[in-house]
């Protein structure tokens, strides 16, 4: 693969950088990579998502003083472990460190929340909510594409399901 910047030399470094507004993903030769200095996270062969995430934990803007002593009651993971490994310890960690994780998750996934499959045992209500969320997305797409007839039809369907949802509550 040729270097994305000079388009001359063979690329050997994979640069990935996620800022608040955009994601940069480049394959660079050694020469061009030097220009990016400290931004280089990895060399192609050894690219590790973990190091990358650990770096993102460390770059968080939140005041860390309190977080450092915080410990997950289920697995004993501390905030420091996070910034070192970039890995979550258990499902409870997601609640324990919710505040700290929030900006990180926003950087990885945007402002999104889950759409899709729901475990059956968590009950029909969540599934219904998921369906409404998905239909709202489709509705927005129809509006953008100026497909007003389909949009109106979908809007009525959502209203129906929402009624059903509130009755179930």
């Amino acid at each position, binding site marked *: 693969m040729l270097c994305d910047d000079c388009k001359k030399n063979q690329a050997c470094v994979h640069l990935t950088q996620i800022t608040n507004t955009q994601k940069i993903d480049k394959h660079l030769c050694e020469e061009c990579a030097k220009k990016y200095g400290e931004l280089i996270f990895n060399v192609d062969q050894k690219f590790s998502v973990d190091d990358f995430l650990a770096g993102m934990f460390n770059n968080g803007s939140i005041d860390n003083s309190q977080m450092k002593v915080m410990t997950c009651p289920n697995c004993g993971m501390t905030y420091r472990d996070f910034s070192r490994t970039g890995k979550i310890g*258990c499902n409870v960690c997601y609640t324990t460190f919710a505040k700290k994780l929030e900006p990180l998750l926003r950087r990885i996934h945007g402002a999104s929340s889950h759409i899709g499959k729901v475990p059956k045992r968590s009950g029909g209500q969540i599934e219904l909510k998921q369906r409404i969320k998905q239909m709202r997305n489709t509705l927005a797409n129809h509006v953008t594409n100026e497909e007003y007839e389909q949009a109106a039809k979908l809007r009525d369907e959502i209203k129906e399901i929402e009624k059903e949802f509130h009755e179930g509550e």
Partner: protein
Amino acid sequence: MSQAELFIKPLTSWMDGSGIDSDIVLSSRVRLARNICQIPFPNRANIAQLSKVEENVEEIIPELAEATGKTYQSMSIDKLSTLERNVLVEKHMISSNHIMNPENRLVIVSEDDKISIMVNEEDHLRIQCMVSGLDLGATLEMASKIDDTIEAKLDIAFTEDMGYLTSCPTNLGTGLRASVMMHLPGLVFTRQINKIMNASTQLGLAVRGLYGEGSEVIGNIFQISNQLTLGFSEQETIDNLTSAVLEIMTHERAARKALYAQSPDVVSDKVWRSYGVLKYARTITGNEALALLSEVRMGIDLNIIHNVPAKVFNELLVSSRGNYLQNLKDNGNLSPNEIDRQRAAMIREVLMNGSND
């Protein structure tokens, strides 16, 4: 396929050259990441917790068999030889990550090799389903069925907003990674591949080489997969990927046609020369073999070479790999030169048996 056959048979049924658009799409795969509530993720779990996960999963095998109508075998990674572990990686049945800490790691494989469940990889469960050709829908359906069966027995970690909780936050949400393995010599030779890769990245897709994350491109084989798991449903994810793959496929077909139309003599000389080298070489490296095989395969697809069946390419993709060759010879101490010699012999034999001339 029995356990013994799994390591010595080159062809897996999900890479046998059958299926939709299989001249360009080698295989489609879907992976679901799942974790059990309260038990720490594998990187944080102790031995007792890891073996509890193993036990919990092994107990479900009869239910899995009933739900899917297939039989399964469970293998402890630490009970396999180093070569056997690497053969499973070369065959894409498990990740290279899964053999780093072999203790308390399992792989559960269906008899047809289309399903493999890694236990205690990065997540407690990594459910993988694979088919030959382009059919992500079929793989997703299979994976969901297995997921349903497991979820009926085990408490799977999930929240309404974040979806399925995973060890690495990049997999949160659906926990779904769908990927398609494509053979794209036309785009490489016409130097369009970078354009395609950039466009794919902008669509939220990742493009990698034959062996996943960070691996170099060999044999003009690329893996295209989704990167985003939160905010998109499973169906949307595979629909997006499928439409990108169809688009890439159109460009690949056009590129091959253009290449051949523009310089038929150069193209047919190139593919026949590659065939000649493969057929008569006495020593050959793995990367050279794959590069030449890619050209021969393109020659078959372009109807230049008639006497070799296309699936020879799929077969040699696996059987020309170093660990597979060594395992076949029952010798993990072959020198690189000796492996190159064995590889050349193997390719000569396959081409001799496979061709009709």
